[in-house]
């Protein structure tokens, strides 16, 4: 029996769409011999026993996840990543740097990668070229074929008789980074006017989250050329509404985030007996036989009584479902991608020389809790000169006298190369600990010290941040070759400056050749 544990960001994530659409369905269809469970990351950081053999991180874009992944790998667990949103392909928006830097940080601790779509996995492959990547589509939920057949024929009959269509748009209406949700609805909503022009009485219901219904969101909806009503989204209401709806309107924008989405929304609508009208990017191309691209085509088929989703076509729909969203198939792929890797021995059992398992470098914004967490897993807490908290770090990189200096807590000297340890100079107590100064130029192989003057200006440090962090990362690796090095940073601009610079596979798009 193999247990796969999905590591989630918080207990609240259990009620998220990702959990509901993906992991709960996969768990219920898990192949024999495989159990799929889940646990919030905070819980896993507190536990002493890790019962699962495989841990898959899902949307845990936080430094705690890096530490946990590092620890899990060191105790012999297999670590995977699962992606279903593309925050990684838009490289010119600094606000997305935190996701992208996190994936790069996670790469050394990743044994395999899962993604919902081909496009998404190809994006992730740029970040994680060493780990095997497998596409595991979002599976459909269990449904009753007979119910669906009845619902489809009832809807067609009623709509044709009344020439009245209830159209639904459903989903998260807002996004802080991407122009999606109600923006897509409004951008493509012009087509909805065609129903009336073609002699059909159509009303739209917008089923979305309340956050999207700001004054701007409502003002946008007002521009729709069709009568509409708004309902707050709940899982139950979505189910109930789509079962009653004739048409699901699912516009798709062409930006990277939207293009990497799964078939889930379209499948959800089809399985509730809705005709699907999807404008914009042809995301649902693989289900094209059941997806209308224009209101005119839908009305023409309604007039002929030959809509795409109708009783006689259901067998074909089931074929497509089997091909693209079979729960058994998805769960099997999911399980085999996770379990096909050989189990690695715990580093306790290996013959690697002793030393801290990880060095956790605090960047500009790094919480005290991370400092404690590093200690809990036996790691070193490393101060960069940008971290302004006063903590008992075990390794410090400070700006002193206009240069970058490296200092180590005395009790950690035993892990150092003996030649280097002899060059250490006692500098006395800092906070509660005794420290020695280490010659940074010798660690780095330089002839001169590393000049560094930290300005008093709130942001002047950004100019030197990537270079200094690169130096610290390298110094940590040289001081403790067996340790994993993790940067804990949550400052948006700091991450932006580090993006592409502090990682070995930086894509150098600029002509001046800075890497």
């Amino acid at each position, binding site marked *: 029996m193999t247990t796969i544990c999905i590591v989630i960001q918080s207990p609240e994530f259990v009620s998220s769409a990702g959990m509901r659409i993906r992991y709960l369905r996969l768990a219920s269809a898990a192949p024999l011999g495989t159990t799929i469970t889940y646990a919030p990351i905070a819980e896993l950081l507190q536990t002493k026993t890790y019962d699962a053999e495989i841990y898959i991180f899902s949307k845990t874009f936080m430094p705690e996840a890096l530490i946990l992944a590092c620890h899990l790998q060191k105790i012999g667990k297999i670590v995977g990543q699962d992606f279903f949103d593309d925050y990684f392909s838009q490289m010119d928006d600094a606000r997305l740097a935190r996701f992208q830097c996190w994936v790069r940080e996670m790469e050394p601790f990743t044994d395999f990668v899962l993604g919902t779509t081909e496009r998404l996995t190809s994006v992730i492959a740029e970040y994680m070229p060493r780990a095997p990547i497998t596409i595991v589509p979002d599976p459909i939920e269990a449904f009753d074929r007979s119910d669906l057949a009845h619902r489809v024929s009832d809807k067609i009959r009623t709509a044709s008789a009344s020439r009245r269509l209830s159209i639904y748009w459903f989903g998260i209406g807002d996004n802080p980074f991407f*122009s999606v949700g109600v923006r897509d609805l409004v951008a493509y909503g012009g087509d909805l*006017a065609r129903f009336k022009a073609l002699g059909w009485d159509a009303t739209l219901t917008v089923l979305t989250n309340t956050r999207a219904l700001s004054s701007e969101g409502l003002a946008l909806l007002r521009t729709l050329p069709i009568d509409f009503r708004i309902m707050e989204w709940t899982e139950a209401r979505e189910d109930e509404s789509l079962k009653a709806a004739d048409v699901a309107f699912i516009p798709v924008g062409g930006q990277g985030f939207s293009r990497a989405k799964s078939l889930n929304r379209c499948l959800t609508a089809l399985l509730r007996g809705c005709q699907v009208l999807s404008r914009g990017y042809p995301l649902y191309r693989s289900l094209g036989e059941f997806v209308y691209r224009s209101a005119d085509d839908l009305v023409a088929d309604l007039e002929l009584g030959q809509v795409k989703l109708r009783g006689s076509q259901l067998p074909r729909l089931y074929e497509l479902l089997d091909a693209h969203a079979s729960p058994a198939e998805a769960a099997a792929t999911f399980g085999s991608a996770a379990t096909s890797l050989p189990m690695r021995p715990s580093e306790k059992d290996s013959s690697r020389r002793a030393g801290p398992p990880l060095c956790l470098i605090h960047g500009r914004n790094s919480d005290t809790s991370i400092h404690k967490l590093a200690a809990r897993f036996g790691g070193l807490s490393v101060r960069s000169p940008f971290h302004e908290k006063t903590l008992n770090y075990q390794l410090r990189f400070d700006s002193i006298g*206009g240069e970058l200096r490296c200092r180590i807590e005395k009790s950690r000297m035993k892990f150092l190369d003996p030649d280097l340890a002899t060059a250490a100079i006692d500098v006395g107590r800092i906070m509660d600990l005794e420290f020695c100064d280490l010659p940074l130029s010798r660690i780095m192989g330089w002839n001169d010290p590393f000049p560094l003057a930290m300005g008093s200006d709130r942001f002047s440090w950004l100019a030197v941040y990537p270079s200094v962090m690169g130096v610290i990362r390298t110094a940590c690796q040289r001081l403790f070759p067996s340790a994993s090095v993790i940067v804990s940073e949550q400052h948006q601009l700091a991450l932006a400056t580090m993006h592409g610079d502090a990682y070995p596979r930086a894509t150098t798009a600029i002509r001046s050749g800075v890497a």
Partner: protein
Amino acid sequence: MTEIDDAGIAEPLTAMALSLDPPDSGWLSVDADEDRLLCRLTTAGRIGNDAPPALSIQIGRQRLGVVRCQPVLDGDALFAIPSAALRSFVRLSEHVGPPSVRLSLDGQPDLSASVPVDTLCETDSRRPAAFYESGGSGLKLADLWLASDAQLRLRFEGSASDTGDETLNLAAYQIVGRTAAVREVGRGDLTSGSGLGICTIGLANPLGPVLLVATDAELTIRSLNIIPFPSLLRGGLHHWELRAAAVAADDMRDVANVSAAYLSAFLRSRHHQARRIDAIQIDARDAAGNESIFTGAVLDWLTGLMGVAVRLDREPADDELAEHIASLLPHTGEEERKPGSSLSLPADAIPTLHALVSALDDDSPKEMPSRVDSGACAYIVQPRFSKGAVWSVCMPWRPGVMEAAQPIGHACGIPRLNTGRAIPSGRTIVRTRSMAIRQIDLLTMADPARLFPMGAASPSVLTGQSEPFSASISVCIALDSITDNVAPLIDSLRFQSARPTEIVLVGTASSLDELPPTTQHALRSAFPKEVRYRVRDPSATRGTALSDAAEQASGEVLVFVSPSTVLTDRRTLDALASLATMEGIASASAMLLRALGDRLGFCGAGYFLAGLSFSTSPALAYEALPTDEVLAMATYPVAANTSLLMASRKRVFQKVGAFSSEYQSTSNIDIDFGLRAIQAGYLNLCSTALTAIAGETALPGTLDIDLLGRFPRLDLDRLVESTTILRRLK
């Protein structure tokens, strides 16, 4: 009479279908005066004497209503049909084949005739029908606007309900698709359902001309009106171009007048094919496919009625997205090269009506829209999905230089005209009207953090040249105080991709050794051999100090940096030096950000001309405007750059005459230099694709510089033509 074809080929026949061609035209004679078709029913057409005859009017295959006869003269019945709206509607449709106008004797479908276009349009009225004009209905249209892309809402004064029990129907007709098919697209009742005097009717296309017909219960036509360009109305895609042109856009009468003038210009422009914009080329590198220009309504209107070809100039990098976007455009196959001009647009822009109806370089009569100036780029920036300021931008565009100065990896966001002809070297103040409307999404644009450089992976790089900048760069720093700590700046210089050849410091300390230890240390450790120090006269102005540093500098390019500025983008020196060494460029700078609490906020990106001030003495007023929104990821000419961060080629700097020694404030020094550079024929470029962090003393909001005293012979024309003009429209 000459027959014209009925182009309504795909439409089902209505119940009022008329007799087929050829008609017997002997029963009716038709003449036209300026605003009417005068139809005389001859004796041959008099059938029966029981009731006054009525003439049925049909356009395409749509029956509009009937016209009752006027008093009979000499035994003939006379009909006067208001024709201005019909004429305009037909002529607007010329590009797709004008729909026929047919007349028939009501109740006698055997007697019908087509009105030839020649007859209908033989009087070329300078003032086509305007929709505010009252018809004979007793109704007066008081206001109208687009409630949505599919709904036209009208408010009437003296509604039908005021005129007793009479009920009027209002029907809207449009050309649908890219053919000449006329359809009734909406109908409203003026007396019930929609409230007193307000009527909402459907539209098939919010850009296509709308023929509005009011009829009474007997189907008698009470008024015929045309809205030639409904997108100019409130809620329409082109509404903001009225505000940019200082038209009182809320006043329906003004909107109607502009519509009539545009219509007239558009009809005239058909005779100047070589001078029209007949193609739009879209740079779709940043497109998502949901932009307005890719909607069926816009494409139908552009490629159908307006006769403009729409093509992709650059495609998105993603093949599938490129294929999808290409599929949205009309497939035209191999097109014959047209003689007109093309407009290059980013995907988030649509052309203005003004650009499409104007003739280029044409000495149009005064009442026509002003010409489109091919030497400047003027456009409107409007938030698409959110509230926010709407801006009018007018930017000089020098081919070669301006293209090369734009960030690579992005679509060029600056609409521009390609005439294929040399740009006239006019010396008149730019009168350019907006050529395009960009619809940006502020959700992802308004945060300066978004524009922060993304390490070395950022594709948002300026590239003026194919090779990295290799010539020598001298960094010039004027220390205002002996305690100035330039260590952070020096650190940031250390990590620049283009290493400075030398750093020239000018300060009041007697030597480098008197500077703060951190500064000394930073300089000596990072640039041990490249630092030169000059002692500055304490009474000398900052301009003098910087000019002195420049004088001493040996580099081909001078980069002036304030001690409080930090170059957070490692490509800054490289990019600014590349811009500064382009032909005709006097200075180059970047967008400056500064700390606003714990966040970075916009500080400034060049000085913009704000206007003439006569508050004390005549002066030019300047502002530092928020170009992070309106000119994000772009390089543009400004009136002046700030010496807090500015690159200049040394020989150009000297030719312009260095910084003035007369001013104390940084902004006056900057503007003085910028103006002299422009006087000498140069441009000053600033780019929002590069960011740096400024200290607290960065650009103030507004400042004046004495105009007459300093520049008694200032060439205002040149100044305006060398500077981006930004104007907030709300």
